[in-house]
């Protein structure tokens, strides 16, 4: 059976050969016998029989190649031969491997992060059909609880909708107080997600009976392990959160960490319950937007249908309630705090992915020119192979095998290094006080992409010599001996490749310079306060059980006693520091407004509550008017300090002092001071209106104590810790210097700068190796010519000029093109990196100098070689 034989053939090519030989042998013997019978001599009979077959080897090869089953065998042979070839030229192999490891490794790292943050769904049993319901305008993703209840009960397109928010609390044990982060979730949360508890039970919708009716906790697996030593009898015990008792009813499975990709909470609590006295007030306030809605679509319902459905409900609600004036719905992929980080993360990662891809492309062009040079050097070998009967396709397949083998090997090593880096990234917690980290370890998708990239890049640079092979005239090549005399005058494919590569590299180098400059500027931008020399002590007085009237005395004591610490020059308190993670905004109305719906507002403003002395401690300049005093309390008239933007947008050029405004509570506030503008949410924001209220007129339990001192933080901290510990030992404080606390807002810029820096560095390395390889090759190919020229009296400088003019010309034109592209592309960067502008003389100079230095470094050794031409020795060798 020939099918059977084909299978056997897969294992053995030689068996097929034997069979063909045996068949031919039988034929030859029969012919000989007949020839002898026709009276030929045995010698002659044999010759005649054989000659009729022509070239038997070629025929046998043709027959073997026809056997489809032997293709696999041939592939194996190609690979073995490729491996032998690569081992014979270790310099080429090493260069190519390093280039590929960098190129593919960079792509694997970036793709893993992209995969983890953008592509991967939530880590829940059935992630399909889960969407966050946010407002139409981007960046405004929080909803109010009453709106949630209405959306949930009135929609016809979702199987269920859950609400959740993320907040912090103090967790007190017998020995210590800890700051912990938790989700407050609606009762149906776990049931909707389909998660099963590891211990005990989860709470359900049936556990909710109005505010403070379900004092239950579900611990995260990690929290259970860290604080309770994985105690199997934990269910049923009571723990204190902000000194309020809660009963542990269950433990979540180890893989479940809530509904955000990068947050790792300590526990979950029903949203109807709260460890703060005022913590459940928002449940009835329609204008209080402070939670996220997560919905699961009914099977067969499209996101568009669901959006239309919710918008119809929103319009109905807007007619009913003035607070819902602006209500609208949009569905977004869940996992990035609604979609708060969705857009920036997506555009940033897409940008970086593009850059990484450009790096790989540059690496491929680099390898392509190396490989083309190598093929030219091997033209004699290739010509011989063609002459003895190998087809051009065979030769091409052979070269392609070398390229793909190298690429896959480089890809595997690159992936290995990336995995190490990614595992470190997964363990990395960028912010000490927030439970933020992202699982970026590669999954099968990443490995698949790595393999695909490896094979594709191998194909890309392996196919470059295709023209060379097809153009090879074996007779010609063997006569004149290699590619030595192939035209060096005209521009070749290699030159083009090098030009493209240098352009790409300059683009990347420029981009990283732009980012670095932007970062440097953003660190020196006016913030509206002076973070240097300030230590922050953050806490929430609720965590110590303080509320209402007991809050002020505690704060006053803190300010007085901390102010007495030697070396402290000023102290102040603010509820949430600007450029922190909190921060709220409110609608401001002109006096005389009757209809308090959002569309009637005068301006939207950030608002903060501050103590007397805060402005001084923060270094915020008071431009006009006065600071607050302790007499601005609950009993005295409401006052406020506003910033310049607020004053200008409300009152134009008229003085704001003494003017009044209202908020949604319809109470008038008098402006007693004007301060400088500042940054409140992010470094890149446009100027915002801001208003400051006295702490006592706008009570808030969040407390950030600012301690300004010329001493380094380390010298202040022990005394500060001791002093605050004496006031209330149960209050958990988070201490950090203010510049450190700004790490959160600087994080995107820092990450962007670091990433672009690495990309730029990779690009620079590729540019150096590319130019170096090209120049070195050009010099080595023309050594003989140089020898002759030197012998007839050419000066070394002339030789160097003719050897290096081509690479230098390419370097110049490529750099110019890349610089131009970089300037254009940098507009995109400006969205991530604050104040990134390519029209900065320093950036342009930096890029130009870098490329010049790279060019110098890359051509130094080849130039030396050209200078040291020794005519007599060279001519003898040839």
């Amino acid at each position, binding site marked *: 059976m*020939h099918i059977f034989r084909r299978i056997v053939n897969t294992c053995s090519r030689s068996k097929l050969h034997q069979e*063909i030989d*045996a*068949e*031919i042998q*039988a*034929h030859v*013997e*029969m*012919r000989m*016998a007949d020839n002898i019978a026709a009276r030929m001599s045995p010698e002659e009979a044999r010759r005649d029989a054989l000659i*009729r*077959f*022509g*070239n038997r080897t070629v*025929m046998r090869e*043709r*027959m073997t190649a*026809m*056997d*489809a089953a032997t293709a696999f065998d041939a592939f194996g042979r190609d690979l073995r031969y490729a491996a032998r070839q690569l081992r014979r030229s270790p310099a080429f192999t090493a260069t190519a491997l390093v280039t590929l490891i960098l190129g593919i490794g960079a792509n694997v790292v970036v793709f893993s992060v992209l995969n983890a943050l953008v592509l991967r769904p939530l880590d829940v049993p059935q992630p399909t059909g889960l969407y966050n319901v946010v407002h139409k305008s981007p960046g405004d993703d929080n909803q109010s609880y009453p709106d949630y209840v209405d959306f949930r009960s009135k929609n016809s397109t979702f199987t269920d909708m859950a609400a959740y928010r993320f907040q912090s609390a103090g967790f007190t044990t017998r020995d210590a107080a800890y700051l912990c982060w938790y989700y407050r979730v609606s009762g149906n949360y776990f049931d909707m997600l389909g998660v099963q508890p590891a211990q005990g039970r989860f709470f359900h919708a049936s556990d909710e009976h109005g505010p403070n009716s379900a004092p239950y906790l579900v611990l995260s697996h990690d929290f259970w392990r860290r604080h309770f030593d994985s105690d199997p009898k934990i269910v049923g015990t009571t723990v204190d959160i902000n000194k309020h008792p809660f009963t542990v009813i269950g433990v979540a499975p180890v893989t479940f960490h809530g509904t955000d990709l990068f947050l790792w909470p300590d526990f979950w609590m029903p949203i109807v319950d709260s460890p703060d006295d005022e913590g459940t007030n928002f449940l009835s306030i329609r204008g209080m937007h402070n939670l996220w809605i997560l919905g699961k679509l009914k099977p067969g319902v499209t996101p568009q249908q669901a959006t239309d459905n919710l918008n119809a409900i929103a319009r109905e609600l807007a007619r009913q309630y003035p607070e819902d004036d602006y209500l609208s719905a949009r569905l977004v992929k869940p996992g990035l705090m609604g979609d708060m980080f969705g857009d920036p993360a997506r555009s940033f990662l897409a940008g970086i992915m593009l850059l990484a891809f450009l790096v790989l492309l540059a690496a491929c062009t680099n390898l392509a020119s190396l490989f083309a040079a190598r093929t030219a050097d091997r033209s004699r070998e290739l010509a011989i192979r063609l002459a003895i009967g190998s087809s051009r396709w065979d030769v091409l397949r052979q070269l392609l095998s070398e390229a793909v083998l190298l690429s896959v090997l480089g890809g595997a090593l690159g992936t290995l290094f990336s995995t190490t880096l990614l595992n470190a990234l997964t363990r990395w917690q960028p912010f000490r006080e927030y439970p933020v980290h992202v699982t970026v370890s590669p999954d099968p998708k990443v490995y698949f992409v790595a393999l695909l990239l490896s094979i594709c890049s191998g194909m890309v640079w392996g196919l470059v010599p295709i023209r060379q092979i097809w153009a090879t005239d074996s007779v010609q090549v063997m006569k004149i001996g290699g590619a030595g005399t192939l035209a060096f005058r005209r521009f070749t494919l290699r030159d083009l490749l090098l030009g493209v590569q240098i352009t790409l590299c300059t683009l990347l180098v420029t981009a990283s310079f732009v980012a670095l400059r932007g970062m440097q500027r953003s660190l020196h931008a006016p913030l509206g306060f002076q973070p240097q020399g300030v230590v922050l002590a953050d806490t929430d007085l609720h965590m110590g059980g303080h509320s209402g009237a007991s809050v002020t005395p505690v704060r006053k004591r803190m300010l007085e006693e901390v102010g007495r610490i030697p070396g402290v020059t000023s102290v102040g308190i603010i509820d949430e520091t600007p450029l922190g993670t909190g921060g709220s905004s409110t609608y401001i109305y002109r006096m005389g407004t009757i209809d308090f719906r959002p569309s009637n507002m005068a301006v939207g403003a950030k608002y903060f509550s501050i103590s007397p002395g805060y402005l001084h401690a923060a270094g915020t300049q008071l431009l006009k008017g006065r600071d607050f005093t302790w007499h601005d309390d609950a009993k005295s008239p409401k006052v406020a300090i506003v910033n310049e933007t607020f004053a200008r947008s409300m009152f134009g050029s008229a003085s704001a002092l003494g003017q009044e405004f209202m908020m949604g509570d319809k109470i008038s506030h008098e402006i007693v001071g004007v301060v400088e503008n500042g940054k409140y949410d992010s470094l890149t924001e446009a100027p915002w209106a801001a208003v400051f209220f006295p702490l006592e007129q706008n009570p808030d339990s969040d407390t950030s104590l600012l301690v300004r001192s010329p001493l380094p933080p380390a010298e202040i901290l022990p005394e500060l810790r001791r002093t605050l510990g004496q006031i209330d030992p149960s209050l958990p404080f988070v201490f950090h210097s203010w510049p450190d606390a700004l790490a959160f807002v600087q994080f995107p810029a820092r990450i962007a700068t670091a990433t672009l820096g690495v990309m730029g560095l990779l690009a620079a390395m590729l540019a150096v190796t590319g130019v170096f390889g090209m120049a070195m090759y050009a010099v080595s190919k023309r050594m003989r010519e140089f020898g002759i020229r030197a012998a007839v009296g050419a000066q070394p400088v002339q030789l160097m000029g003719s050897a290096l003019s081509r690479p230098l010309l390419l370097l110049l034109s490529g750099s110019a093109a890349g610089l131009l592209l970089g300037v254009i592309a940098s507009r995109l960067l400006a969205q991530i990196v604050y104040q990134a502008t390519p029209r900065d003389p320093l950036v342009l100079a930096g890029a130009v100098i870098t490329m010049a230095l790279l060019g110098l470094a890359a051509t130094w050794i080849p130039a030396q070689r050209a200078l040291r031409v020794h005519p007599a020795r060279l001519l003898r060798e040839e």
Partner: protein
Amino acid sequence: MARNDLQGTLDLLVLKTLSQLGELHGYGIVLHIQRASDELLSVEEGSLYPALHRMEMSGWIRSEWKVTDTNRKAKYYRLTPAGQKELQNAEKSFEHLVKGVRAILRYA
């Protein structure tokens, strides 16, 4: 006009030979074609064996090792049903070719 090339002609000769004589080895095919065509056609060994191999891969013929009358081991080929059908096609298209060529030769 399907497959009226020379290779098609060699296939036709081999298939027809096998259909007439049943079972034959490569050398036998060469001899038969030579004899049956009154020495007008001779098949080159260098083309015959690749052609046999290809036809076998296509499933038109089957092979088997057997002992010849003179006690040699040789590979014998026989037609498969698929080969029978292919032979009919090849004969038809050869008739077309001959008709076409003849028409051109007689064109005055």
